């Protein structure tokens, strides 16, 4: 199974080389065999005696991250959709994409996506699942931005990337929590420990994280906004990713985890509400669109909302209806996208206001479109699969039982009405889609080219999909026992196989369907009269605006924050650094009780020490207040010599010598640079800044003083100096302990100190010798 998953990725490596022959053979022809062979590989698992298959390939066994592939009914359904529709899409793209396009890139991304998607649906390991999940986001990003020279493509790609990766990361958070709680990385093992998870305090957080991942990926309300913008991708991509496969990854995720979460009442509430709201909002919005693909995008969102809602219901009938609708939606939506692509390809526009009366010019496309749109609308005709799943949906909304929660009880009452409400608009936009394009007066003057029938190769893929619509419509039970029932069982083990029938008698779902059709026809015919409502709702209220506002605000606020502290002024940075040290150190000293002051163990203070310290203090204060540069340099020298005197008093002859010479050298260097130094400026800061600086400096000095005193007052360790005193002559052969430490006991420090000196000297030489002279230029 590993090979089956990875073969598209492996083949993707050689696609760029194959695309060199694209003038003779369209690259898509080579690519076609990959998904098709995967389809053939997996189709043999279909059968009523299907048993889940598990295979493991080690990746990082020490972390429990392995390629654990688990093929159950649900995976099988998705795998067949991915490879089957993948084959058709590749076939379609052969006729859709001209050889002048960058075919190598296109098929590389597409194959990458295929591997990612197969990996998502087959992985049993949560982290491998996440890996493939992000790979779908990345490859989808690349595909949406395929025509990267278009501004809208880049915008759409970025938007989808930001939203889906946001969800993906939050999903990772949920998965990490789950694997921490259960101690396993396998989804099936987690399902076995469902009691542990349901009893855990973090359950709401986990569910929120994972649902966020699923909702963003499947374009659920209010994260649906990326999908309409993703329509900038080439049409085969829209048909494949944004109707049949990737957007169903979120559905898959919910289905996969619903054995875990369905025992939790908020799962029903959240998922059902989000699903139903998505269904209603998107179908309502779809009517407003003028772009063919825009209509289809909102239609996809609304259908996904419907599936999501059914998964939220969680009853056996609803789950079966959901699985059934996944299959049905893939067939009719895939075909409709391809038809939209054909219309675009043959007329040069996708704007429905410019189209009309195309049936005469494109009869084949028109016939295919009839089946697609009518099936999407759920019109009760015995050869349309959309009707069955819609009726199963209505039936499942009626079977809901309240769990006692007030919100849940309200939902149970409201859902059937909302479902009908959403379906009415579904009907309206489906009719609009077909009649708006294919009937009415032909507006040939608005089209760039005279429309004509598409090449037969382009029609093959939608034809096969429409054939699927009709076959499932005529024989709704064809795949159920052998195929769909296994998928539903993977989600909810209480599913029972029911025989789907076209005619159930006069029962409520039928009346709901008839209401949809009846009201839908009225709405469609009076469309012009009520379409002004869109100026009120959504009107100015659009989630795109919210998204754009957030993105812009993020930019602005980050820029403002950065500008506020990255002023470019060293003074500001110094203030920030010192203030941070002051606050943090004080905080920790106080919290840990670090301030201890004891007066034991103090030496006597002599008069000469007081005198020297007084001189140093006066000199130090004088450097701050002097206005003369020369004065400041010399007074600094006084401090240095004062310190040298202190070294003498404290019996450190080596230090005293060194300090004397070094102080002399540095004062001399200061004086050498005297003429080059900038004039001491009168400080012109505001009084408040001055005060702040004073507070920070005094505070910092005080802090360091207290730390020094505290360090002296605490006596935790015996000093190491006794060792040096004892062994200086014995081991080092010298009486000068300081020197023995410097060259022998800690010679390495000295080695690097002289290295530092050498580097400093070379740096000064290069600064002086290699500078670009302003006058020379």
């Amino acid at each position, binding site marked *: 199974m590993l090979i089956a998953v990875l073969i598209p990725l492996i083949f993707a490596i050689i696609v760029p080389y194959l695309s060199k022959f694209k003038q003779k053979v369209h690259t898509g022809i080579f690519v076609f065999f990959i998904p098709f062979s995967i389809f053939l590989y997996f189709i043999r698992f279909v059968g009523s005696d299907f048993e889940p298959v598990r295979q493991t390939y080690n990746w990082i066994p020490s972390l429990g991250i392995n390629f654990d592939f688990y093929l159950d009914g649900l995976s099988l359904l998705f795998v067949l959709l991915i490879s089957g529709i993948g084959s058709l899409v590749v076939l379609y793209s052969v006729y859709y994409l001209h050889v002048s396009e960058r075919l190598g890139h296109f098929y590389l991304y597409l194959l990458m996506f295929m591997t990612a998607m197969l990996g998502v649906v087959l992985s049993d390991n949560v982290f491998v699942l996440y890996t493939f999940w992000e790979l779908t986001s990345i490859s989808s990003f690349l595909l949406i931005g395929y025509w990267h020279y278009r501004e809208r493509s880049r915008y759409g790609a970025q938007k989808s990337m930001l939203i889906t990766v946001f969800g993906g990361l939050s999903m990772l958070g949920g998965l990490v929590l789950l694997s921490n709680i259960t101690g396993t990385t396998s989804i099936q093992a987690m399902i076995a420990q469902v009691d542990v998870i349901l009893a855990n305090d973090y359950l709401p957080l986990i569910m929120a994280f994972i649902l966020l991942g699923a909702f963003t990926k499947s374009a659920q309300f209010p994260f649906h906004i990326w999908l309409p913008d993703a329509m900038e991708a080439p049409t085969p991509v829209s048909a494949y990713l944004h109707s049949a496969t990737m957007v169903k990854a979120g559905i898959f995720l919910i289905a996969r985890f619903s054995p875990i979460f369905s025992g939790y009442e908020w799962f029903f509430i959240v998922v059902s509400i989000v699903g139903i709201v998505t269904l209603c909002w998107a179908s309502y919005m779809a009517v407003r669109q003028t772009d063919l693909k825009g209509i289809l995008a909102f239609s996809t969102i609304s259908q996904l909302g419907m599936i999501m809602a059914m998964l939220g219901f969680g009853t056996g009938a609803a789950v079966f209806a959901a699985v059934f609708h996944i299959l049905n939606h893939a067939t009719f939506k895939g075909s409709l996208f391809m038809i939209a692509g054909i219309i675009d390809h043959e007329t040069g526009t996708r704007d429905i206001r410019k189209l009309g009366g195309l049936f005469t010019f494109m009869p084949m496309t028109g016939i295919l479109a009839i089946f697609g749109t009518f099936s999407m609308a759920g019109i009760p005709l015995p050869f349309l699969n959309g009707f069955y799943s819609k009726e199963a949906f209505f039936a499942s909304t009626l079977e809901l039982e309240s769990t006692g929660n007030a919100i849940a009880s309200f939902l149970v009452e409201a859902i059937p009405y909302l479902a009908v409400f959403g379906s009415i608009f579904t009907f309206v936009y489906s009719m609009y889609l077909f009649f708006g394009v294919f009937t009415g007066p032909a507006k040939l003057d608005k089209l760039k080219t005279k429309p004509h029938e598409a090449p037969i190769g382009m029609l093959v893929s939608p034809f096969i999909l429409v054939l699927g619509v009709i076959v499932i419509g005529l024989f709704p039970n064809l795949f159920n026992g052998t195929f769909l029932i296994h998928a539903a069982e993977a989600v909810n083990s209480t599913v029972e196989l029911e025989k789907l029938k076209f005619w159930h008698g006069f029962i409520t779902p039928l009346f709901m369907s008839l209401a949809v059709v009846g009201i839908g026809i009225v709405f469609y015919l009076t469309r012009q009269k009520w379409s002004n409502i869109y100026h009120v709702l959504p009107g100015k209220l659009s989630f795109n605006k919210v998204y754009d506002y957030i993105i812009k605000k993020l930019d602005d606020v980050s820029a403002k924050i950065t500008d506020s502290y990255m002023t470019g002024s060293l003074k500001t940075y110094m203030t920030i650094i010192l203030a941070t040290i002051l606050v943090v150190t004080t905080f920790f000293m106080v919290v840990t009780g670090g301030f201890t002051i004891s007066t034991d163990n103090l030496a006597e203070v002599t008069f000469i020490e007081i005198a020297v310290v007084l001189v140093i203090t006066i000199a130090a204060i004088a450097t701050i207040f002097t206005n003369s540069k020369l004065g400041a340099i010399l007074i600094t020298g006084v401090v240095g010599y004062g310190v040298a005197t202190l070294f003498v008093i404290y019996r450190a002859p080596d230090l005293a010598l060194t300090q004397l010479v070094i102080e002399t050298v540095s004062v001399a260097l200061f004086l050498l640079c005297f003429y080059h130094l900038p004039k001491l400026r009168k400080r012109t800061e505001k009084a408040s800044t001055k005060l702040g600086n004073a507070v920070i400096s005094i505070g910092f000095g005080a802090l360091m003083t207290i730390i020094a005193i505290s360090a002296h007052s605490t006596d935790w360790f015996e000093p190491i100096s006794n060792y040096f005193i004892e062994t200086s002559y014995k081991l080092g052969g010298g009486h*000068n302990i300081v020197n023995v430490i410097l060259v022998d006991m800690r010679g390495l420090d*000295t080695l690097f100190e002289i290295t530092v000196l*050498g580097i400093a*000297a070379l740096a000064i030489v290069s600064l002086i010798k290699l500078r670009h002279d302003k006058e020379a230029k």
Partner: protein
Amino acid sequence: MYKPNDLILRTTTSLIAFILLGFAVYLLFAGHNSPGGGFIGGLVTAAAIVLMYMAYGIETVDKVLPINFETLISIGLITAIVTGLGSFLFDVPFLSHTFDYFEFPIFGEVELATAMLFDIGVYFTVVGVTVTIILNIANDQ
């Protein structure tokens, strides 16, 4: 051009410089047992050399002391590092030092320590660094 007559400076320099150099050598070799060492010795040597530059000017001193002080830095560093590496020959860790006493004809019993070699490396580096820095900055236009 006005040229100062700095006879007194030059005369005293010729004397003081040698006293300084002698003192520096004393500091370097005495460092192991009394205050001093390679660092302070190097600084005093550098002071003597800088004094000579101040009194006699660059050209004269360059003739008398044909030393490239930038090279002196590397000589010093190499001496120090080679001293450290030498300990590998005796199968002991880097920078392990040893010492022993030897009988010499004139000096009598003398203690010789490998640490002194290291100190000489320090000495050369400090001389080179200090003179290089001061001369470069002083001669910069």
